[in-house]
């Protein structure tokens, strides 16, 4: 709701560039608006510039060009300690020589709050992350998950409106990570804080965020809600990076009425939805999600193109079957089917007909 009103953008990057050596740009012309209360994730491979963006927002790096605004005020020249932004670090950065309570009390002490207020706030923050019993412990005496909670409580205890998180769950095991993902989002929504979250884990990004900004090569490749990102990737990088994806290479043969006919390199012809192709004869990468491929011809809309495929491998994974096919010269074509009572199991060597709805098949840049 809030995000419709772009004028009230809480955090705003305006034509921001960053270079460390004066030769290459780590962040190239970044424009981003984050409304109040949003959980935004910056997702991308390492070296894509996402952490640099976060550090510029926190004030530990300065933008080479452009402006970063917080609440309508440019913060380019405001030092980090005056920005009032909470931050959770990758390795938690809990002060090892202070107890949990002292760690939490630190931001309140530097704000010169009196003792009773400090204690009250520390207790409240610890209760919020269910760590009230651990006040007197040192960080080294806590498990990874507990340290994570304390780091979170410390970033929230001085009630910042904006909290930055730099891969905070990277060091936890899978189960704990999933639990913390849920807890962090729940807490963020309950407190109504704005969160900018950096991760390279796409599952984390998709499950936690209101919106995801996919970074690559110093640029935002796509900024969208998780479902849009998955269903409607705007370019081949996003399609490849988010989830599993089948790619077929070809040339645009015909463009008509929101349908592009693509002649694949192997000779077959398929219909696709044109996303970023504009002229006939252009090279394109066609992208289809494995779970959108239909093995049962009867379920396809009439007039759909079909392709002949040879089964190479059939993997039983419990809730889904994963079949590797040879399609149009590609040995890596994956199909995922749900394990339902009417679903047949395929044997390697079998020849089948596969197809898909043209709307699920996106012609992207080559």
């Amino acid at each position, binding site marked *: 709701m809030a995000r419709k009103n772009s004028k009230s953008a809480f955090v705003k990057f305006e034509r921001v560039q960053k270079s460390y050596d004066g030769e290459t740009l780590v962040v190239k012309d970044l424009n981003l608006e984050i409304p109040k209360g949003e959980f935004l994730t910056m997702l991308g491979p390492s070296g894509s510039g996402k952490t640099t963006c976060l550090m510029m927002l926190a004030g530990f790096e300065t933008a080479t060009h452009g402006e970063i605004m917080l609440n309508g005020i440019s913060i380019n020249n405001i030092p980090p300690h005056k920005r009032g932004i909470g931050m959770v*670090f*990758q390795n938690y950065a809990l*002060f090892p020589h202070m107890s949990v309570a002292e760690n939490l009390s*630190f*931001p309140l002490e*530097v704000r010169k709050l009196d003792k009773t207020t400090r204690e009250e706030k520390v207790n409240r923050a610890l209760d919020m992350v269910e760590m009230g019993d651990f006040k007197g412990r040192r960080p080294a005496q806590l498990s990874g998950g507990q340290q994570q909670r304390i780091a979170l409580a410390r970033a929230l205890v*001085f009630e910042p409106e904006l909290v930055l998180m730099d891969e905070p769950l990277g060091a936890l095991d899978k189960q704990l990570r999933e639990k913390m993902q849920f807890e962090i989002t729940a807490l963020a929504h309950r407190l109504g804080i704005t969160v900018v979250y950096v991760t390279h884990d796409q599952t984390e990004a998709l499950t936690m965020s209101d919106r995801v900004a996919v970074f690559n090569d110093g640029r935002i490749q796509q900024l969208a809600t998780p479902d849009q990102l998955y269903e409607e990737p705007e370019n081949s990088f996003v399609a490849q990076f988010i989830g599993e994806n089948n790619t077929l290479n070809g040339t645009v043969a015909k463009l008509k009425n929101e349908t592009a006919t693509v002649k694949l390199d192997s000779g077959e012809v398929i219909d696709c939805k044109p996303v970023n192709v504009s002229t006939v004869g252009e090279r394109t990468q066609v992208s289809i999600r494995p779970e959108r491929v239909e093995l049962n011809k009867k379920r396809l809309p009439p007039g759909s193109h079909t392709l002949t495929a040879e089964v190479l491998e059939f993997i039983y994974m419990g809730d889904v079957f994963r079949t590797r096919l040879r399609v149009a010269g590609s040995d890596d074509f994956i199909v995922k089917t749900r394990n339902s009572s009417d679903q047949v199991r395929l044997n390697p060597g079998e020849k089948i007909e596969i197809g898909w709805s043209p709307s699920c098949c996106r012609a992207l840049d080559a």
Partner: protein
Amino acid sequence: MVSNSSTNVLLSADGTPLKKSLNRSLRQQKLRALLLIAPLLIFILVAFIMPIVSMLSRSVENELVGKTLPLTVQSIQSWDALSGELPDESVYKAFAQDIQNAAKAKVHTKVALRLNYEKSGIASLFKKTARKAKKWDIETDGPFKEKLIKVHKGWGEVEVWQTIKTHSPAYTSGYFLNAVDMRKTAQGADWQPEDKTILIKLFQRTLIMSLIITFSCIILGYPVAWLLANLPMRQANLLMILVLLPFWTSLLVRTSAWKVMLQQQGVINDVLVQLSLISDEGRLIMINNEIGTIVAMTHILLPFMILPMYSVMQTIPPSYLRAAKSLGATNWTAFWRVYFPQSVPGIGAGSILVFILAIGYYITPEIVGGTKGVFISNRIAYHILKSLNWGLAAALGTILLVAVLILYWTYDKIVGIDNVKLGG
């Protein structure tokens, strides 16, 4: 059955107790390890431990008097040193016999020197007596009381005999009493006369100046160590070479360089005069006194402070400072409340290293210290090389060693030696 087997001794497969067979299998491993370190162990034992023990034992050893003057020592025991009267003829006769034997064997100078440490003047007394005593016939030439007093009136002084008696036992606390400006007299331990007290003053000076040197090393070394730990790799390496550079230059060269810098016609004074900051007559005296020693030793010991500090600081991730700043701390607060407490083990390790090195330093104070800037170690060297009072030198050395060990122990109690990181 179950409870029975748990109370029994565990047996290995062939029936021998498990502990025994484990010991047997480990014995060979231990033996091999011992063999590997044996050469080093023997070397340390012969070249390090044994000389130190033998030197330290000299601080209480006092066999010379008993060995050279056996008859005197024996007969003087019955004399009451506090009676105020001279010993009787039998002691004088025994001494005449002893000094004659010693003079013939040419060992009388040694014991004369030994007793001269305790009461000056005894050496000449002995030498003069020994010359005459060679010609005496002990059986017939008596009585020796008058004869000896005639040779030198010193033999008529009670104090001389008191000194001989007090220092006749094979072991003595005399050297240690000397080392703290006291002396052993017939009446017991007593303070040295005012004009002979120097050692306590020297100990104090050594401690205070070592503390000042350690403190200046902390002040100068901390920023350098911080830079080393936080600069990018390439600059840090360059800086590291600059820090280590002094290690590759001779200690004497470095100390002499300070002499050139600090002397009254030296570089610093010349520059100050040229800049008209001081007048030509008012040239600063910075060498051959405390300032010279402090400046030169701070420079020489600085790397020993920087390296432990650096190795500790290297382990403090920069994210702590960032975290502190993101929580609202100013640069200073972030440093003082978050970074500094974590760097304290490095300061501790550097300080203990520098202080221990400083307290026993010899060459630099010797060259640039003059008389006001010398340490206790220079006094030890003096007693070893010039006055040849090895017993006193050993006692001084022992006190120094014990002081360092106490310091080390206290530090371990307060900070914990585990927290000292010398190499990461």
